[in-house]
């Protein structure tokens, strides 16, 4: 096990820079999830850590040792690929043992290690099978087993769940999390699915266009997003964004309502107010939004309502039993302390 440090990491393909000097410290045993839309540089970062690609600039250190010039095999890492990359011509035992081929261990020790890993993953009965005889989830487990067998300092997961169906994904998510609690190795996990990030991570790294937008615990990035991008990216359905203006120390919304958000807002500045759908509901408070219901999505215990106002659609949560009808004009309100305030120009959080 070891910590991981990234310093000013830059990656350029010809003239296109895809990583613009990112820095990050990952503690020993931490489960860190890189999340972001496709093309944000998260997989590139992972491949740089793995040594599958060379960094253009910056430094990567694993366990205090700079690994930039080391081959992947010398970096003490193991990687699980999106396509699993388990070899179809080998049995499960051979696949799991593949990572030990170059290890200086006796055959008996290797076999014992394979059995141990198979036991942890609940695959002891499947060791003699070929990958074609396994289900998607089992193949994924073989891929994880092959990574585990070497007991690497750092595990790298590259979107390992994205090929699984929804139910299996939830199950594997839980299994990987349990596995981490059991073996305790440092894990870097890349995904584009914010739910995976939220549910699994000790800390989430949100990336966009080759920059880190925010690093924090799931609670931090959810409750204190650093900017509008993070605010929208984390949480489903996405956070609603409303515009307003600071006038005489108070916030004047486009709907006409005036909100007192306390001191500290820049006078005369355009503001974006973020409010999560679960915080926004029909009621009698100050009207953040007022408009007709366009769509209802009943979820049972509650109903999502889409309200058209000021040229955009706002999502709110209404009671599951007596939701407003489509076409009904509603007033949506939220408690002041649930509002997120962003600078409209830069998108950065103001408080």
């Amino acid at each position: 096990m070891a910590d991981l440090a990234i310093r000013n990491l830059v990656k350029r393909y010809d003239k296109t820079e895809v990583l613009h000097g990112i820095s990050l410290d990952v503690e020993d045993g931490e489960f860190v999830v890189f999340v972001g839309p496709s093309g944000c540089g998260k997989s590139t970062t992972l491949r740089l850590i793995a040594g599958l690609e060379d960094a253009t600039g910056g430094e990567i250190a694993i366990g205090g040792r700079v690994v930039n010039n080391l081959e992947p095999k010398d970096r003490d890492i193991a990687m699980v690929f999106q396509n699993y990359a388990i070899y179809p011509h080998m049995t499960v035992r051979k696949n799991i043992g593949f990572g030990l081929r170059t290890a200086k261990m006796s055959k008996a020790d290797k076999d014992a290690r394979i059995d141990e890993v198979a036991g942890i993953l609940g695959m002891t009965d499947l060791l003699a099978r070929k990958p074609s005889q396994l289900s998607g989830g089992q193949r994924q487990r073989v891929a994880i087993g092959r990574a585990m067998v070497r007991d690497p300092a750092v595990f790298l997961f590259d979107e390992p769940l994205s090929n699984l169906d929804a139910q299996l994904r939830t199950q594997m998510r839980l299994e990987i999390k349990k596995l981490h609690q059991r073996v305790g190795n440092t894990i870097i996990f890349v995904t584009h699915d914010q739910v995976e990030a939220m549910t699994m991570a000790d800390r989430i790294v949100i990336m966009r266009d080759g920059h880190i937008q925010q690093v924090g615990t799931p609670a931090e990035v959810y409750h204190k997003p650093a900017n509008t991008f993070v605010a929208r990216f984390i949480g489903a359905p996405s956070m609603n964004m409303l515009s307003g203006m600071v006038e005489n120390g108070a916030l004047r919304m486009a709907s006409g309502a005036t909100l007192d958000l306390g001191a500290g807002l820049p006078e005369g500045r355009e503001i974006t107010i973020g409010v999560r759908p679960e915080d926004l509901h029909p009621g009698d408070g100050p009207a953040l939004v007022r408009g007709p219901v366009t769509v209802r999505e009943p979820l049972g215990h509650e109903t999502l309502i889409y309200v058209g106002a000021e040229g955009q659609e706002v999502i709110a949560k209404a009671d599951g039993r007596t939701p407003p009808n489509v076409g009904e004009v509603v007033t949506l309100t939220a408690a002041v302390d649930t509002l997120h305030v962003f600078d409209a120009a830069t998108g950065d959080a103001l408080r």
Partner: protein
Amino acid sequence: MTATEIRPTTDALLKTEAPKKPANMGQILRWMLLFLGGVAMVMPIAYMISTSLKWPHEVYNLKLIPDEPHIENYTYVLEDGRFYWWFVNSMIIAVITTICNVIFDSLVGYTLCKFRFPGRYIVFIAILSTLMIPTEMLVIPWYLMSQQFGWLDTYWGIMFPGLMTAFGTFLMKQFFETVPDDFIEAARIDGLNELQIWWTVAMPLVKPALAALAIFVFLGNWTAFIWPLIVTNSVEMYTLPVGLSSFGDEADVAWELIMTGAAISTIPTLIVFLIFQRYIIQGVVMAGLKG
């Protein structure tokens, strides 16, 4: 197979009850064309075997069934010491050339496919362009080269032009494209060197292509005629096709013996095909990927 799969589905039951559609004209025409094609393919082989069972005086009689079928030709050919030499020569040459092609073509194909290096494309085009030069044009340079190096009338002389082929390289490169990079990167992380990755990971994944290549190369060399004819002088160095053509004398070609030798010489090709065809049929590459 599970029990549920054996039970006929409603669809299947309905199908068996439905009246049979009469074959339409298009279908009849298709079958006839296929039948004619089949006859065209089988006739030479049928005549080969038929001729091998005839006496010399019957050879030019086009009857398919000989009047007095006999196996004297087979005993003669098999008891003739030269035939064994030629058979062994052909076998050695075809086997070694096949092994070399499987290794070298796939090594070069793999390199061209999976490594990024300056000039990669030019090398590939250069190899491909050699496909456009007919063998007949190369025979004279090959001969002059063999003469200068003292390779005339040797195994090496017969084999060297075919130890690596542009076609094989191209075939393997295209097939390695179907091997996902994830496999190779995973092996790299697991600590294998590039040669080990090629041999233990990439090669097993392209078995169907290797089998196809092996069949092509083996058949090509087993039946090769022009170059072995030119480069060999002594009867002991002849390959089977060259040797068979020498049966008989200037005045009379012993067709019945040539056909007998030809019939025997098809046996190894059949065996090679039977061994490798199952690898061609099974496509294994995708099984380790997402299900």
